[in-house]
Structures are given as C-alpha cells and as structure tokens.
C-alpha cells in the first residue's frame, strides 16, 4: 500500500500548491488535475500490467478505452440504464475486446521477435480507429456523451470539488485497491507475477501460461473500459480517435515510473498530471502535450528504466 500512501501525500502537496496559485485559478486547475490525471493513471496501470506479463506494449489500449466510452454512451442514450449497469456492461464488453485482440492478434505471435509484436500492436490500434470510424459504426465525428446526472459543486473554503471529480476519485482508488489485491493477494496474481518473470519456469509449476496472458488482457480491457466511461462523463465529447493521446500519455506515465512496475505507473501518472497542471498554469496549455514528450526524452536519456526500474537486461 506504499503506492497509495505516496499518492495521498502527493495529493495534499499538490493541493497546497494549487491554493498558492490563486483561488480563481485553482478551481479550473483542480478540475483539470483531477480528471485528466486520474484517468491517465488508470490507463497507465493497464499498460504496465499487460507489459509486465507479456513484455508487450499494447498500443491498442487507448482504443479499448475509446470503445468503452462509446459503449457507455450508447447504453446511456438508448437504454437509459443506471450508472452501475453502464459501468458493468461497458467493462464486460471491453474485457471481451481485450480478450479477442489477444487471441486474434498476439497469440499467434507467441515466441515471435518483439518487433513483430510491436508492429502488430500499432496495426491493431490503427485498425480499430479506422474501422470504427466508418459512418455505420462510431463515425469519425465528435459525438455528445449525455451525462446521466447533473453536475453538483461542493464549495469548500480552500477549493471546489464536483460530484464528477468525487466519483472519478473514488473509482480510481477502488480500482487501484482491487488491482493491488488481485496481483499481490490472489493465486492468479501470484501466477501473473511468475509468468512475468519466466514463462518456461511458470509452466513447470503447472501454470497455464495462455490462460494467464488472456486473463491479463481481460482485466486490462475491463479497466480501460471503465476509464473510457469515466472520461465520457468528465468530457462529454467523444470521438473515435480520443484514445490516442490518453494512450500515449499512459504509456509515458508507465515508462516514467518504470514499465512493468505497478506503483511506478501510479507515481508516473501523478507526475505527468502534475507537470501538465503546472505547464498550463505558468506557461500555456498549448505546451501541455509537448511537455510529456520532453519528459519521455529526459527519462529515456537519463534513466531508461524509469524511476523505480532496475533496468535488468535479460539475454
């Protein structure tokens, strides 16, 4: 739980900084901070988990996130389902998408060189974006995401927080907690950590490697879907290419923290989010997206293993 602890500590620090910037500013910033950052983090977790087990950068991750947002949108607009049902159905669907992608695109390449997997991952991502932007499907246009409830602001003397931010906050923390339990306290989690270290050895323990990899994609897909619906609620304009930037940011967050390391992804996500807030506040929001690539360059130049990475090169 060290990661969570650090997270909370960082949060209070940031809150203090935000207050210093000025009250007017802090409202906008707080919203910015809460929403961009937290979903980035959720995504970064999925990235890092799939990477950890499969040693594969799943570039299609941002697109699963997008599919989650669209499914959420249709469920709300056409069926007016209650929120928990929307989350549940979206997560199950994206879990299946994750499972399907692994079965169709990655499993046949088991044992192939890493570069083939990487190219395939980019291919899957482009395919999903282009195929789903057909007019009969999601269309290439921005679509309104009908928010299922009104925004309520709670005014405290130091800051303002909306119910949406609260929901995102609570869901993010519970997902983190669930992932932690899954990976560190269950038999499946133990098997995932074993497979991540050495597949051949894990199979000698009686672990079904194929199932553990599929399972990782299922869990990763479910969390991407959850992130997508949350994104739709926070920013009610969705588009078939919406997964690209969050995808890249999560990837950079995971690299910054040390790819394959769970608490690294959390801290990486936080740092990226905080940096974005600072750049938007003190420079200009146009530099915001450029900044994260500068961060990526710096990490790759100075500490390619990331903050928590040990950079063990396996031969």
């Amino acid at each position, binding site marked *: 739980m060290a990661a969570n602890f650090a997270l909370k500590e960082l949060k209070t620090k940031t809150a203090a900084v935000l207050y210093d910037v000025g009250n007017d500013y802090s409202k906008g910033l707080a919203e910015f901070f809460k929403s961009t950052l937290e979903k980035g983090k959720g995504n970064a977790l999925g990235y890092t988990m799939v990477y950890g087990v499969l040693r594969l950068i799943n570039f299609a991750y941002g697109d699963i996130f997008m599919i989650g947002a669209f499914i959420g949108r249709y469920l709300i607009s056409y069926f007016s389902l209650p929120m928990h049902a929307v989350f549940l159905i979206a997560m199950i669907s994206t879990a299946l998408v994750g499972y399907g992608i692994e079965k169709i695109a990655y499993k046949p390449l088991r044992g192939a060189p890493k570069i083939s997997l990487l190219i395939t991952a980019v291919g899957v991502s482009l395919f999903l974006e282009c195929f789903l932007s057909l007019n009969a499907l999601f269309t290439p246009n921005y679509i309104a995401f009908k928010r299922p409830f009104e925004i309520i602001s709670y005014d405290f003397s130091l800051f303002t927080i909306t119910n949406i931010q609260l929901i995102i906050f609570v869901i993010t923390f519970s997902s983190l907690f669930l992932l932690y339990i899954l990976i560190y306290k269950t*038999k499946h989690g*133990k*098997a995932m*950590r*074993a497979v991540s*270290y*050495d597949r*051949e*050895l*894990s*199979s*000698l*323990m*009686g*672990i*079904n*490697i194929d199932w553990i990899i599929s399972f990782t994609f299922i869990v990763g897909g479910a969390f991407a879907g959850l992130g997508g619906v949350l994104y739709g609620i926070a920013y009610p304009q969705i588009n078939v290419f919406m997964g690209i930037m969050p995808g890249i940011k999560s990837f950079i967050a995971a690299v910054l923290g040390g790819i394959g390391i769970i608490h690294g992804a959390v801290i990486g996500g936080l740092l990226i989010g905080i940096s974005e807030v600072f750049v938007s506040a003190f420079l200009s929001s146009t530099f915001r997206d450029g900044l994260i690539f500068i961060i990526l360059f710096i990490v790759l130049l100075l500490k390619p293993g990331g903050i928590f990475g040990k950079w063990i090169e396996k031969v």
Partner: protein
Amino acid sequence: MKALEVSGLKKSFGGVVAVDNISFSVEHLSIIGPNGAGKTTLLKTITGIIKPLKGTIEFEGVSIEGLKPERIVKHGITMVPEGRRVFPHLSVKENLELGAYAINNSRLEAELFDLVLSTFPRLGERIKQLAGTLSGGEQQMLAIGRALMGNPKLLLLDEPSMGLSPIVTKEIFSLIDSINREKGISMILVEQNAHIATEHSHITFVLENGRIVLTGTSAEMKNNPRVIEAYLGV
C-alpha cells in the same frame, strides 16, 4: 511396472540432432555427459517444454509425450531446473506456493508444506524473505522444495551441483538421497559431475552427442575408464 518408460526419443534443433533414439526406463537414474550431450534437452522433452520429433514417453502406463508442461505436472512429474531458477522477486513462501499451483487441495498442500519445511528447516527460517536474497545453496533447497510441493512421483533434477561449493553440494545431495529413500520418489538426476552422479544413483547412463553410449549400475560406472573417454570425446 517402471514409472517412466522412454523409447525411441528424438529431437533436433535446426538440423542438429540433440537427442537421438533414446530409450530407457527409470527408478533412480543418473544421466551424465559433457556439455552439449543433450542432457537438458532430454529433461525438457520429458517435462513437455519441448516437443519430441519421434518416440514415446509413458508415465505409469499413460502416454505423455507432446503434452503441455502444465498437464505433465499434474501427472506427478516435477523438475528442479538448471541453475536454481527460483522467482527472485517473490518470497520463499510464494515460491513454494507456486510449486503447489496445480494442486487444488488445501489439506494436501498444507501437508506438503510441512514436509518441505521439515526437510529444509533453513527455508522455514527465511519464509518471508525474497528468494533473490537467499544464498546459492538455499536457493537450490528452495528449488527442490518447490518441486516437492507439486507432490511428485518422479523428480527431475537438472545439475543441482552447478555453481555450489563442495560442502553445500554434499549437504544438498544428502537431502536428495533422504527424499528418495524416505518418500519413495523416483528420480532422474542429470549431472556434469560424474563423481557425484554415480555416488547418488543406482543406474548411470553416459550421454554423448545425443546418444546413450554407456549404461551400467552406478557402482560399476564409477570406476569405468570409458566414462572419462566420453567426457574427453576420444
């Protein structure tokens, strides 16, 4: 009936024959031979990590060749891999629990756990430590303990002496002997160290270029000059 029957086994890697027409059956066997003789390939074929080109492997009358490793573990064959491959970032306890992954019986698992800790008390002292922080000898004990957690009827040991000091090697082997004697678990011991292998087995094979070139009781093989020839490749 012998526990394991291997007949006509063959495996090649890109035209290079690693194991050629190997047949044997096992109670307490050691396989020795120089580097590249095909010893590890043979063990990996039995555990299912690699698939044989030809030949059959029967365990307790059931054909197991070509099965996936996780299926073969369920038949009661576990392996202590070469170079003490433990999971270094997992605790000693978690390593042992992974050994019992295929066992869905918590009572049996608890019994096996007690058995392993009574065989290797040193592991009990270090139960919460990360496996990567153990000494070489302790890691080897952990690897053997982990293989025992799978409740094996046949234990495959791939070079347990590798990289260990003579004193630690002696300690490990006396434990291996007691496991074989007291628990009645069949064993295949693969060693480069012919002296150790012949001391701790009943039957010894000499493998050279993927073929069995010599067979005999371990006592005979111990003083057989042909064994040295096989190692030197003359």
